[in-house]
């Protein structure tokens, strides 16, 4: 059993609910325990850095302080939370004026942070701590023949975290291969979906999402496997209709968060794997795989 301190982030409770469901659904079968931080508050995300840089770091520091108390690695599914937490953590680990200021502010609120937390992303934990071999061994529904574009998004791999390639990452592709599916060539796999501005500058965001969908479609994808970031998932899943309206296209590429896909592949039904919450429905695409041959070493999949 692997234990992690889990920080879902504000979006996972609302727009990210289907992805959140899938993360918790696969935890037990994969022998992982994601322990949600108690009484967590917002990390600040990109907007706070643009409102008040110092306040933003203080807000993020509270999450780090909470995580430090557990003594476990801090894992988050949201790429934006991930970037913000890592950035704040790196700044606070260095000993200088800023970290002193933040530390004294934390202690005024009755908290401490000593810079010992390891901030990690759900996708990275699945790839490194679990590994594709383990995923492969748990398959009940091999996804043979399913062609997908693997969308990593921008903040999972940048600025530069020292592992998966910041320009052409392939961890999602490797995981998808271990589930039996076929990742297509997808040059825009690590480009921005524009979600941070989709509310205030919808034109800009919709254009970016359009480029992603077009590139995936041009390369023969039937669906887009996304990172666990709720914003990336919503961009593909929820805004596809807006793209079709504006650009007069007919995209129908379901957004399958990697954890949703894993949940489905290891035998969970549509509801349990969170897929039922997707707006661009994956039902038709995945129906043929529902009846797929069950691996002889695994138990029968539960009925839909």
């Amino acid at each position, binding site marked *: 059993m692997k234990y992690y301190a889990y920080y879902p982030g*504000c979006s996972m*409770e*609302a*727009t*990210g*609910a*289907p992805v959140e469901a899938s993360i918790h659904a696969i935890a037990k079968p994969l022998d992982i325990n994601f322990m949600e931080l108690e*009484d*967590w*508050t*917002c990390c*600040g*995300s990109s*907007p*706070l*850095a*643009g*409102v*008040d*840089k*110092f*306040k*933003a770091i*203080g*807000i993020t520091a*509270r999450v780090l302080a*909470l995580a430090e108390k557990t003594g476990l690695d801090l894992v988050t599914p949201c790429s*934006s939370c991930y*970037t913000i937490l890592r950035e704040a953590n790196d700044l606070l680990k260095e000993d200088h004026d*800023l970290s002193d*200021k*933040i530390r004294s*502010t934390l202690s*005024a*609120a*009755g*908290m401490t942070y000593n810079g010992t937390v390891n901030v990690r992303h759900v996708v990275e934990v699945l790839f490194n701590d679990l590994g594709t071999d383990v995923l492969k061994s748990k398959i009940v529904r091999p996804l043979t023949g399913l062609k997908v574009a693997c969308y990593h998004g*921008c903040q999972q791999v*940048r*600025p*530069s975290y020292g592992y998966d390639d910041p*320009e052409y990452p392939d961890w999602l592709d490797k995981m998808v291969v271990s589930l039996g599916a076929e990742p297509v060539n997808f040059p825009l796999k690590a*480009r*921005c979906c*524009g979600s*941070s*501005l989709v*509310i*205030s*500058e*919808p034109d*800009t*965001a919709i254009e*970016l999402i359009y480029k992603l969908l077009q590139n995936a479609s041009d390369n023969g994808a039937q669906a887009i496997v996304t990172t666990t970031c709720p914003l990336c998932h919503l961009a593909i899943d*929820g805004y596809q*209709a*807006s793209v079709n309206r504006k650009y007069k296209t007919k995209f129908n590429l379901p957004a399958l968060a990697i954890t949703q896909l894993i949940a489905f592949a290891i035998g969970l039904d549509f509801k349990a794997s969170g897929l039922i*919450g*997707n*707006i661009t429905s994956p039902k038709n695409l995945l129906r043929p795989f529902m009846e797929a041959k069950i691996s002889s070493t695994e138990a029968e999949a539960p009925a839909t």
Partner: protein
Amino acid sequence: MSDNGQATFLEQVASLPACEKINECIQCGVCSGSCSTATRWEYPPRKVIAMVRAGMKDELLKSNSIWFCVSCYLCTARCPRDIKPANIIHGLESIALQEGYKPPTKTTTMYRTFAASITDYGRVYEFGFMLKYFLKTNPLAALNMLPLAIGLFSHGRMPLTAKKVKGKDQLNIIINRLSTGGDR
């Protein structure tokens, strides 16, 4: 330092977290060349940095430029001098909002509403945040969002009430003690 002892615009920006290297920029243009939204910026990222160094604070912070940053970090990943342009852009946003600039974009309102949600609820209460934002800017624009909103509601992805978060009070103690500092 300028004559009356006040920090110059450049010094102000350089004193923000992770923005110290702004003076080492060689103006190569990789940031602008990589930027996902550069065609919408009045002054692309490289020029923004040049304007900071030239002290053109008003002209810069009154424009729409920095508000189109989507935080994709391509600039930061590719910069040959490790300047971290994205951090500088965020820093400029925070200066603009702290000092009451009014650039021609709704993103400032969106950011402020987002921040208010955090102080009010401890977390971003998505439904409340969106409602407030559209009421403040353009209620009619919300109509465009209706199909999506309905989709989210019907799929259980838009709770109508905010969760009660005890940690909100502790968070507000932290928030109240901090503000954009630097050499102002």
